[in-house]
Each structure stands twice: as C-alpha cells, then as structure tokens.
C-alpha cells in the first residue's frame, strides 16, 4: 500500500445470511445441507481509497450500508469477498458507551476502556486528567457510572475516544452528544484533529453535517457506491436521489 493511503477497499462485498429462525441457522451449521436462507447484500462490490489527512464524508439514506461500511473499517466485521486494508489506529465514535461497566466508577471505566482499546496503564494515566476535564464529569468521576446521566456517559465515551489521538477517527451521526455547548466542543475537537493530520471518516444522512467537516464524499445507495468526488457534487447527487424516490411515492 502506498504510504499516503490509509484505507483501501478492493471490490468489497458483505453478505448477511438471513435465516428464517435460529433453528434453521443451527441446522445449517451441523447438517451442512442447504437450508433455506435469504442473502442480504449490505455492501455490494465497493472500491475506494482514503489518503492520510483526508476527511471523507460517507452519505446515504437509512439502510444504504453506512454502518456496515464503518464496521468493516473498524475491523469489527469482515468482508465476504474482496479485501479491506487499514493502516493505523482506528478510533470510532460509534457506540460511545460500549465497553463500560455499570458497576465500576467513571475513573475505573476510563482504565477499562483504555485496556480494551489496547492501551497500557502508563499511557492511560497520562490521558486520564484530559479525559475527565474534557468530559466535564469532575465531581462524579469516582461514582459508579450507573449513577451517571446518559449524557454524562456519552461525554465520557466521546472524551476517551477523542483524547487518545488516533490515526483514523470514525464519526457517526451519534455526535449529538450532550447539550449545544458540549456538541460545539466536540465539533471543535474534531476540527482540531483534522487540522492535526488525523484522517476522519464522517457518516451521516444529513448533507449539512457532511459539508461542515469534509472535503470529499462518497454516496451509498442500497449497498452500492454510486458517486464519489467533491463534497458539493456528491451532495447534489444525494439530493437528486432523494427527490427521485420521494417523487415515486
């Protein structure tokens, strides 16, 4: 892979096998005979590249395959055919509170989440105060996080992901964390990261948010990549496709 390419999708397809029931799935596992199965192509033969420092918007309607694409990038799920190459540490602002344990305190959860992300104790200790400050949960940090409000939990989750300085940051539309003030703070942080040379992937069905952050975009429709290029041009196509489908109805 050339040095400046950090993400490369090469003819990637992802097929989910939809069984009628769990019983059917179990039978297909042990019997090896053909059990009735419906195949759902979430991602259909997609190829693209992202260069280092780029901020790419991924736009599409619900069910277009955006989440699956992100899961492929973060390495949570694997392609059925084709190959996905990712260079560098990925931090994903997808499920901000995933990995937290309700009984542990905020501080313990910072460490827990850090270990889960593969950090070592020393590295986490260095970031600990930054995370607490950024999340604005000072007085609660030594309480079990079941005492946290959902906004506080999400803020803590965002803070951990944003502060570790990843090479690639994946941002979902779930960014509407906390109130307007905190949301502005998050946006500012993401801008800082972009300026600092972090590659950012921004996923949304909202054209405005994509325009805010990205200089390039790709458009997904039903698992296929239908447009790629400058952000304005792609958003234009996205609006057309929405108009077309609303006109049909």
């Amino acid at each position, binding site marked *: 892979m050339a040095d400046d390419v950090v993400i490369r999708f090469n003819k990637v397809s992802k097929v989910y096998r939809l069984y009628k029931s769990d019983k059917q799935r179990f039978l297909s596992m042990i019997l090896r005979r053909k059990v009735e199965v419906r195949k759902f192509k979430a991602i259909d033969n997609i190829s693209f590249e992202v260069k280092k420092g780029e901020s790419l918007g991924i736009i599409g309607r619900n069910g277009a395959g955006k989440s699956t694409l992100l899961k492929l990038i973060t390495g949570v799920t694997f392609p059925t055919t084709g190959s996905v190459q990712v260079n560098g540490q*990925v931090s994903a602002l997808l*499920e901000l509170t995933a990995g937290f344990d309700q009984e542990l305190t905020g501080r313990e959860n910072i460490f827990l989440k850090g270990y889960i992300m593969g950090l*070592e104790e020393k590295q986490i200790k260095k970031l600990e105060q930054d995370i607490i400050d950024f999340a604005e949960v000072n007085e609660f940090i030594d309480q079990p996080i079941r005492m946290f409000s959902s906004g506080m939990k999400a803020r803590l989750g965002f803070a951990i992901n944003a502060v570790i300085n990843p090479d690639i940051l994946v941002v979902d539309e779930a960014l509407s964390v906390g109130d307007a003030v905190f949301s502005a703070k998050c946006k500012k942080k993401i801008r800082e990261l972009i300026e600092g040379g972090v590659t950012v992937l921004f996923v949304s069905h909202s054209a405005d948010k994509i325009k805010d952050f990205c200089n390039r975009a790709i458009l997904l429709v039903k698992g296929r990549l239908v447009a790629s290029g400058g952000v304005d041009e792609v958003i234009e196509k996205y609006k057309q496709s929405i108009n077309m489908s609303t006109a049909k109805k």
Partner: protein
Amino acid sequence: MIQIVKENIGFRKQIFKLSKSELIKTYKGAALGPLWALIKPSITIFVYWFAFEVGLRSNRLVHGFEFFIFLLTGMIPWFFMSSAILDGSKCIRNNKQFVTKMPFPVGTIMTYTNLSHLYVHFAIMIIGYVIVVLSGITPSIYNIQILFYMPMMFLFFTCLSWITAPLSAISKDFENVVRSVMNAIFWLSGIIWDPYELGDGIVRNIVLLNPVNFFANGYRNTFLYKTWFWETPYETVGFLILLTGIFFLGAFVYKKLRKTLPDVL
C-alpha cells in the same frame, strides 16, 4: 503463527488488567464483596460432607484419609473447573459488545475470564491447604507440584473454552448442552469418590483419563498421596496427549468461527 495464540501474546498486559476488573465486577455491589467467593464453596463442601459423613454414615477412610479431607482436596480444583467450563462457554456471549461494537482480540476473552477464576481458586487453595495442615497432615516437598497442576488446569480449560465459547455464542443450544452435562461431569468424575478404588480395570483406566479426574487426583497427589506426577505416567501422558489435541482443535474452531461471530451475535 496460530491466530488465537498471537492475539493473546499481543494483548498480554491488557489481559491481566481485564481479568482484574472482571474480578472486581463480579463482587462489586455486594456488601460482603469478595467474601462470597469463599462462602459459596464452603456451603457446598459442608453439604456434601453432611450428606455423606453424617447422613449416609459412610464413616470410613478413603485412600487412607478422612473423608472430609479427601473431599476437600477434590472440591478445590473442582470449583475452578466447574466455573471454567460454565463461564468459559458463556464468556463470548457475555462479552458480546466486544465482538459487535469494537475491534477487539476476541481470543483473549476466554483467557481473562478464566484468569479471574484462577485468582479465586488460588485463594481457596491456600485456605484449603491451611485446613489440610491443621488436620494433621504435614507439609511436604510434594506440595510444590501445585506449580505443575494449577497452570496445567488453567491451560487445559482455557483451550477447552476456545471450542465451547465460539460454539455457544453461535448456538444457544450448545450453551444449554454444556449447562446440562455439568452435573453428569461432577458425579461421573472422582470428586467425591475415589477412582482408584474402582474394581474393573478397564472402567478404571477409562475413568482415569478424564481430565477432571486428572486434576482431582493431581491435587490429592500434591497434598495427600505424596506422589509425583511422573509416578502416574499413564494419566500424565494421557492428559498431555489430550491437551495437545484440545489445543489444536480449539485453535481451529476459533479460527473457523471468528469471522462469523460479529454477524450472529
């Protein structure tokens, strides 16, 4: 190199931390906290002792030892084995979010889950050892064999969960199978009876190859029988062959199922 081994080596520092927080998670929130790790097994041992010694009045020596001491030295490894088999098979499903929400070396889940049980086992083993000594059995050089049997037990049941955990994650039926056979494993293994006293040579030879018996007898070799593990070559060699088989089978099953896990959980 084998994928699951690579994952474990790359994540070794985090594994210890995660096993610690796994342990904290288990006992946090209860007022008696970690004491529960001792209360539960104490009750179980008392129940078996009461049923056999007092109820059934089988007031006799087993292998030359009082029944209570014989029972205790078998139950100590059994508590670890039963939680390693049960939690070992459930651990991927219990840690679902690590599979479906974030990139994570899934092959380490089994390691830190079992490791957290090993800490509890170590504490129970120390207390049990004190009771054994107080009952009049003098400490001996054979006691250091625990450094062989304990790591082997951890290794074996971790490798076993490489098989059971992915299968249970994919099929709830398999999880139920494991849960259902637990009682059978307990009563068919020599935890509360002595496999060496079996009359039939063929049955005894088969029974001795049961890994649960290997460890129950191993702990008794260590604390009571004053026997080195190389003095029981049939069992030790049989076990090592089984361990090798489970290791490679486990690595194979994990590799085969790793990529399907996020799609089915």
